[in-house]
């Protein structure tokens, strides 16, 4: 097995090098699962409360679109699988994608793998070491989650099944990442393509769960939920995930031996010998560098928007079945159930698009650490202009993505039978999230200006906002804590009416944070500090 020589040493090296990253992923996901159990026990303390919510949720299309088909909801375990399941699977998938992308194509693109491969190390050793590491992470997440669920008194079979389904969803998307990493030579594209597959899986599941459930079988997340943890468990759907993993890994290794180190499957073509007129100022460069990323995120938001818009009319139909219940549910917010559903959809899409906004802002930092900022700043371009160009793309890109989300949702809803007159209303409902996204841009650049080593915390802040946004109620988080997330301050259009004050306040806050960040950047040294 000369192709695998050195795997053990490389695995140990990865575990040593990425130990903090590995631990953070595992602890964060398991802790979230455990906290969900505690939260649900608090929110539904009695069987009567569970029965009541189970009956209501069976007709709550919005909840089903976000979480999955209602199954076993009159048990604590069923509630945990419902509230945390889909989100938890997205998390393990993201963990696998980011870890494998970094450890395989990322190492290759940085030229580090070349040094490793010059040693007596087999052609597959690095990939296998990366796969072993990530598989171990998934196993750890699954086992610890099962353990945490059982420790809080949930049934053993359901707990184990739930843990195993997390593991296998992680495996499938790890396989996707491995496969894409062979096709493209660009690590960002690996993240983008695998992330798009994940988004498609999430949306397909939503479409299937709102419909008759058939479409869900085409989504790894949907298939995992078909195993019905804490309901009438069945193991065989999980075999489909095993098969998908094996296929993806086999395809990836078949591609791996057919290509040169550093190359993708598609040979790079000659490009333009001269720069286009737009590539003559920092803004043009920033746009050019982020064009691909904006297109990728745009496609992602488009797919999610179409998916959620398409389901919209079914939400109306659900209400038709149980008018009294719908009024009860909607009573608190004041809007109709469909409006609440769209408000939640736009919150999801805004949080998703914030991934672009933060990544785009942190370009300022990655240009600096890669020393590419040096050559730009050695021309008559001020630091202010250099950073502001990337921020302009981040802020304008946020608006563009929200516009795409609003239009896609509105048009899909209209064409699916909801009526096209809703388009403007839904468009505005998406756009109101722009100031909240700008605040996140501001936070990221403020970190870069003041504490450049800690820019990665921007992602942690986004993760916290996602948790608050989707599990805030279930986790029973205090209101003041939830209100720290800018996304909670956005008026929940179309269910609520438009209030300008919070939007204005957030815009001012964002401008202030950006000012702080740019000022900090002007005062500090440039480089890998």
């Amino acid at each position: 097995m000369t192709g695998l020589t050195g795997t053990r040493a490389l695995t140990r090296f990865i575990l040593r090098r990425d130990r903090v990253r590995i631990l953070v992923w595992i602890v964060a996901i398991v802790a979230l699962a455990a906290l969900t159990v505690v939260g649900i026990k608090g929110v539904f303390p009695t069987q009567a409360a569970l029965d009541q919510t189970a009956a209501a949720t069976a007709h709550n299309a919005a909840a089903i679109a976000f979480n999955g088909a209602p199954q076993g909801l009159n048990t604590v375990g069923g509630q945990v699988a419902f509230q945390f399941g889909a989100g938890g699977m997205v998390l393990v998938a993201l963990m696998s994608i980011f870890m494998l992308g970094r450890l395989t194509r990322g190492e290759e693109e940085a030229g580090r793998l070349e040094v490793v491969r010059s040693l007596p190390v087999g052609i597959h050793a690095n990939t296998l070491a990366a796969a072993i590491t990530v598989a171990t992470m998934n196993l750890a997440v699954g086992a610890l989650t099962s353990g945490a669920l059982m420790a809080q008194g949930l049934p053993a079979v359901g707990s184990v099944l739930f843990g195993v389904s997390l593991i296998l969803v992680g495996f499938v998307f790890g396989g996707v990442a491995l496969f894409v990493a062979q096709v493209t030579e660009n690590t960002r594209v690996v993240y983008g393509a695998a992330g798009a597959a994940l988004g498609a899986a999430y949306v397909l599941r939503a479409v299937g769960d709102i419909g008759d459930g058939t479409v869900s079988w085409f989504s790894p997340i949907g298939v995992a939920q078909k195993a019905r943890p804490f309901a009438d468990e069945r193991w065989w759907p999980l075999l489909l995930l095993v098969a998908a993993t094996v296929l993806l890994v086999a395809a990836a290794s078949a591609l791996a031996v057919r290509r040169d180190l550093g190359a993708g499957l598609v040979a790079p073509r000659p490009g333009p010998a001269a720069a286009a007129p737009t590539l003559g100022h920092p803004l043009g460069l920033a746009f050019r560098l982020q064009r691909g990323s904006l297109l990728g995120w745009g496609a992602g938001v488009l797919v999610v928007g179409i998916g959620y818009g398409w389901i919209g009319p079914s939400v109306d139909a659900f209400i038709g079945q149980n008018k009294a219940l719908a009024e009860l549910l909607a009573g608190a917010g004041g809007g109709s159930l469909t409006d609440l559903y769209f408000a939640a959809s736009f919150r999801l899409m805004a949080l998703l698009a914030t991934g672009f906004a933060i990544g785009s802002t942190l370009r300022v930092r990655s240009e600096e650490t890669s020393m590419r900022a040096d050559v730009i700043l050695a021309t008559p371009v001020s630091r202010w202009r250099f950073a502001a160009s990337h921020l302009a793309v981040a802020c304008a890109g946020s608006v563009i993505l929200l516009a795409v989300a609003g239009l896609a949702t509105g048009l899909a809803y209209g064409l699916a039978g909801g009526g096209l007159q809703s388009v403007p209303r839904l468009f505005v409902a998406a756009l109101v999230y722009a100031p909240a996204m700008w605040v996140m841009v501001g936070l990221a650049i403020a970190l870069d200006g003041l504490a450049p080593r800690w820019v990665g915390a921007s992602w942690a802040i986004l993760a916290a906002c996602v948790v608050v946004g989707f599990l805030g109620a279930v986790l029973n988080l205090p209101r003041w804590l939830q209100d720290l997330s800018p996304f909670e301050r956005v008026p929940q259009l179309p269910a609520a009416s438009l209030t300008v004050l919070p939007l204005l306040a957030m815009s001012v806050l964002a401008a202030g944070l950006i000012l702080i960040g740019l000022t900090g950047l002007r005062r500090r040294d440039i480089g890998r500090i």
Partner: protein
Amino acid sequence: MTNEWEAGYVSERGPWSRCDDGHVTVAISTSGLTKNFGSTRALDGLDLSVTAGEVHGFLGPNGSGKTTTIRVLLGLLRADSGSVELLGKDPWRDAVELHRRLAYVPGEVSLWPNLTGGEVIDLFGRLRGDLDRRRRDELLERFLLDPTKQIRSYSRGNRQKVALVAALASDAELLLLDEPTSGLDPLMEAIFQDCIREVKAQGRTVLLSSHILAEVEALCDRLSIIRLGRIVEGGTLAELRHLTRTSIIAETVRPAQGLADLEGIHNLDIDGAQVRFEVDTDQLDPVVRRLGELGIRSLVSHPPTLEELFLRHYGDELAQEPERVDRQRAATP
């Protein structure tokens, strides 16, 4: 468009490059410059002076502070203490204004993998405001660089050529070049040297950092040697040679006795009739006289190369300061 710009360029360079009475002024001047990174001292009281219009060699081993100095000169780093002036201005405060007048080639050329070489060169030219298509194309041809390739598919040497073409195609009055030829083959290095001579003939200033001594010897009017963040020696090549030793190999009629008693003799090695030694250049006269008295059968002498100068400088001091060197090494990633 280009002509208008060049007109501005001529009037703009007047005030700094030559004073009213026609005397050459200083392009770069630092004094007592220090810069710390955490507990590592990268620059330790650096005094560097580069005269306008000269090609100035900036010589030192890896990790001696060459790149840190250049990044301070570019205003990317702020010095902890000491003063620094570039073309009469403060590189930190007046960065943008200064960067209109200089071009920079980094030692480690890191560019955007998905842009082509041609796009990058044009981008730099436009950012600086002096893109000259004709000069650019001419340089591309001289350096045999294909501008349609993506940066990711260039070799290290070709990435360096991209940065060099961008810098050489500019009108900049000052070129800051950080080990610009470390990835070039000998043929390309010769072309680079031609280009620098042309730049010099146009009266522009070049700061050329290097550890390739032959290059500095071939191009530079003056040089400064940096070690552990401090300039340890500087001057013209001729001036520095005064401080150095000439190597001599001679065969004498009579055994070479009494040489060891003379002043300025080093590393004396007598092997039968053959004698080898180094002599301080200012002690050459008495030593050659003494050899003459012994009867010379053959005599080979060669002037000190920069290599010897360099090796002697560091060879001696490295042995004396093991502790300091260890600290420096520990601090280098």
